[in-house]
């Protein structure tokens, strides 16, 4: 978000850029596929250039459209005895099917994946901690 580009006609997405995006999205593209995607994306983004002409209106603060709950103060009782705004369900939704039935690899109550390459030893160490 440091640099900002204007959407403009004639924008072209390079194959290198497509591959960078594909890596971010963890999608593997063969060379031919990447080429086609670059071409499709360039053509789609060209149509998006019109967005540059929107007279700036205050954009919404969140992704949620103006429905219910978005404007009401959170966690406060409202009239008519309805639950507090934003109040969720009081109990977790139970699982009707054990996890071992949906997990691709399940051992001793754990999901299992191939060992992470970057792990160097410290317990609980993560590439990206929250």
């Amino acid at each position, binding site marked *: 978000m440091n*640099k900002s580009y204007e959407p403009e006609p004639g924008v072209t997405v390079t194959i290198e850029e497509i591959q960078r995006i594909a890596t971010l999205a963890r999608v593997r593209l063969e060379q031919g596929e990447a080429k086609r995607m670059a071409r499709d994306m360039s053509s789609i983004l060209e149509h998006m250039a019109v967005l540059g002409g929107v007279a700036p209106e205050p954009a919404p603060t969140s992704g949620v459209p103006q429905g219910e709950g978005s404007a009401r103060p959170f966690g406060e009782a409202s009239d008519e005895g309805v639950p507090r705004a934003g109040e969720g369900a009081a109990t977790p939704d139970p699982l009707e099917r054990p996890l071992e039935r949906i997990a691709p690899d399940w051992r001793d109550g754990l999901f299992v994946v191939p060992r992470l390459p970057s792990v160097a030893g410290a317990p609980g160490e993560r590439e990206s901690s929250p």
Partner: protein
Amino acid sequence: MKVNAGGVAESAAEVRDGSLAWGSMAAQALEAHGTWERGAVPLNAFIAVDANADRQRGPRDGPLAGIPVAVKDNLATADFPTTCGSRILEKFRSPYEATAVRRLRGAGAVIVGKTNMDEFGMGSSTENSAFGPTRNPWRAERVPGGSSGGSAAAVAAGIVPVAVGSDTGGSVRQPASFCGVVGIKPTYGRVSRYGLVAFASSLDQVGALGRNVRDTATLLEVLSGHDPRDATSANRPVPPLAPACERGVRGLVVGVPREYFPAGLDPVVRRLAEHALGALEGAGAELREVSLPHTRYAIPAYYIIAPAEASSNLARYDGVRFGHRCREADTTERLYELSRSEGFGTEVKRRILLGTYALSAGYYDAYYGRAQEARAAVAGDFERTFGDGVDVLFTPTAPTPAFKLGERVHDPYQMYLSDVFTVTANLAGVPAMSVPIGLAEGLPVGGQLMAAHWREDTLLTAAAALEAELGTVGSPPVPSGAEAA
């Protein structure tokens, strides 16, 4: 006996008072499904069917007692697969059920099967399904529309009287238009999204399809209502919808937005839309030309916001906890890339890349930021129009009748333009519906109605009036051999 001939409310009443056997309508639905699958070109409306649906049990006192219902395959069900039309969820069975599905069961509905769809809802033709395209029951070489093509086709083919779909940019209304049935996308927040597999969370809404306006209203009423498991679900009462269908349009102000009748509009579609407007006027409505000037930003805004949200929503399909996993991967990074590349189809990959691009550093403001501004401008158009005394807007649902299979798959942007009249309602969160307004060379055409937030009742009033004035478009011919069934 005609397959499921009565109205849904009447048939359910007969089941409740015992004059109609519980499983009889479900049995007819299974039979009709078999007929369509045995035709020269199978309809392929369903990804999964419960061959014993007529023996399912449920409460007999509900408003949908014994009514066979088809459910789009992106709603979580515990007893059917939930594939979303994707290879990545081919063998996935959800450990929990969607709120909409629980409401159906609670109302006594019999879920006969899960319907085909464009993968994760991404498409306008149901051709992007990992399980093959669904055909348009009116003409097999045409698409049924999408992404709820399976649900629309199942209703049009007379397999079920009503079906559940979902609508992110027109996915209920456009297939309803192509298949000659009624389809409604309620106000964002009216129906719980809990268990609706997310495509674009701020736009997705569960919708109802039906043979006629009344049946559709009956289903919508069952689906609607607050759900504490969905923070975007509205905590407000659902008014009874049946009376709205009887109200009549006398004095109703019908806005006709000029941006929805562009010069290049298919002339048959234009003629049928003008005819429908005449019918509304004849029934006592007041027509008023209006302008929604930001409409031209809708498609670009939609095709930034929806893929952006999708790119994040679809990150969970990583092969770690459920769904397809590439067995050859020897590292977790390769596991991600290979599982996702094998599991997702081309259009899904295209939109994931588009959305990732729009959110990535350096492009966020230019694309996602601008798209949000455009979205606010589109919503502002509706707010002004409804604030100025317009009760309901009337437009064509889609620019053309159903197109041919394969016709648009190679030009993504042409495909995206199928949604040009429908995405605005999703961007603004307002309710919208499609109702048949006639046939163009044997293919159905739908008209779209849009109203202010929470005014599904107004939509139904106008839709019922159109249906009464124009009559139905009838049913497509049943494949040979069906008469004997």
